[in-house]
């Protein structure tokens, strides 16, 4: 029983945090709080659940992959 949590780009550096699993969470926002031990959410923070953009209120379930990252700047 676990949820994978990933961080990217400036967010990963600012939080100084590695990708890791958490045991459970009911929403993406709760996953953030657990994974970062309640770090403040930056402005413009984006979240994806299983490779799709989601909201912090979106529900998560066992086995999900949740990613947090800043605005994208590719292209």
């Amino acid at each position: 029983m676990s949820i994978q949590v990933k961080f990217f780009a400036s967010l990963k550096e600012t939080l100084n945090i590695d990708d890791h699993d958490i045991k459970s969470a009911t929403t993406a926002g709760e996953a953030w709080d657990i994974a970062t031990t309640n770090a403040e959410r930056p402005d413009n923070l984006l979240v994806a659940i299983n490779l799709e953009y989601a909201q912090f209120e979106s529900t998560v379930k066992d086995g999900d992959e949740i990613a947090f990252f800043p605005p994208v700047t590719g292209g």
Partner: protein
Amino acid sequence: MATYILEQSFNPWESISEHQKSTTLHNQFGATATFIGTMRDFNDNETVSAMMLEHYPAMTQHYLEKLINEAKKKWDLLDILIIHRVGNIEPGDPIMLIACWSSHRRASLEACSWLIEELKHRAPFWKKETRINGEYWVEKNTDGL
């Protein structure tokens, strides 16, 4: 339809030419619209000596395929090629290539422009620039500029 994420520099014109030869498009397409984004050696009036492009591999692949499928629904396209660099990039290196083939010009031109904007606003890539005073994450993409 093809998407490639590359860690090495590529020649955009050779890539398009090879892709075009490899397909069964011969004598069917009348229009090819392409766009290449290339790394410049300055940004915001500052010299940029290098760039690192990070991405979220699984989501990138998923999004590029999703964008291609959406474009195919919106326009009558014969083929699409998308290439995006990741990793360490030097000034003058192509970063992104989008090529669209269609029977008539409007579909390829509109799809190419649409794919650029969608990729820039939805695909999970992040740029970090090396400037004279250090390394800086690019905070957001310009809006259609």
